């Protein structure tokens, strides 16, 4: 019962914050809405007995990535009066609604076809750091190392791009 109430609250927060992310005019307002959505999603992960993923979602996503985005928005000093009027907003929105609604309807149908059953009980301790770490550094060690390589490359690339002279 508590589980169902928490699920309803968290998913409502996530969806409303996501809609607010898309609709707000100023990117800073969007970024703050997105942080709210990320934290609600972390709560949903915790409900799904994935506490480590929930913690990392808050630390890395809400903490680091969104902080980086907010930092760059402030660095560029985007003011509300500098934002251009978005041309053709109405036809674009209608197009986007059609583009999103059709596959969403199809997916809703498919989801209820495939997985209407309640979630089964899992063993106690499912999602613990110990087990997740064994998997991460065991069978998944190759993708893990590749991701660390990717992060290094991205870091070097980001510095090289941001330092580049405009007309050089």
């Amino acid at each position, binding site marked *: 019962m508590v589980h169902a109430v928490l699920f309803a609250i968290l998913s409502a927060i996530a969806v409303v914050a996501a809609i607010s992310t898309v609709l707000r005019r100023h990117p800073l307002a969007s970024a703050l809405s997105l942080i709210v959505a990320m934290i609600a999603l972390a709560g949903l*992960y915790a409900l799904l007995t994935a506490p480590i993923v929930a913690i990392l979602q808050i630390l*890395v996503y809400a903490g680091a990535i969104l902080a980086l985005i907010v930092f760059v928005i402030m660095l560029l000093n985007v003011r509300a009066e500098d934002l251009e009027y978005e041309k053709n907003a109405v036809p674009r929105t209608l197009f986007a609604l059609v583009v999103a609604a059709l596959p969403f309807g199809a997916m809703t149908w498919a989801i209820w076809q495939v997985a209407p059953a309640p979630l089964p009980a899992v063993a106690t301790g499912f999602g613990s750091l110990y087990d997740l770490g064994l998997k991460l550094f065991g069978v998944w060690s190759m993708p893990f190392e590749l991701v*660390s390589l990717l992060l290094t490359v991205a870091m070097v690339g980001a510095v090289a791009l941001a330092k580049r002279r405009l007309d050089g």
Partner: protein
Amino acid sequence: MIPAAAYLMVSAALFFIGAAGFVARRNLFTVLMCIELMLNAVNLAFVTFSRQWGHYGGQVIVLLVIAVAAAEAAVALALVVLLFRNKETLDVDVFGQMRE
């Protein structure tokens, strides 16, 4: 208990909200954040299936996706800074051509 389908519905809703925003919005930052939103929606589906089958694969993939999203955000924001310095605008329509 909540069915897995309920979590998947939230995931699908978030994904298509992000997709609609990606198509409809013209602000460079908002478009970027819509991509992040779609990544997160997929993560929720992964964690749901991880719980459904009692398998750690989904959770590990979510950790990898978070790392990839961090890399993507770093490079994308460096590009945004570069583009903004070049054109003094955040309108994605202005960046239509790749050359120059």
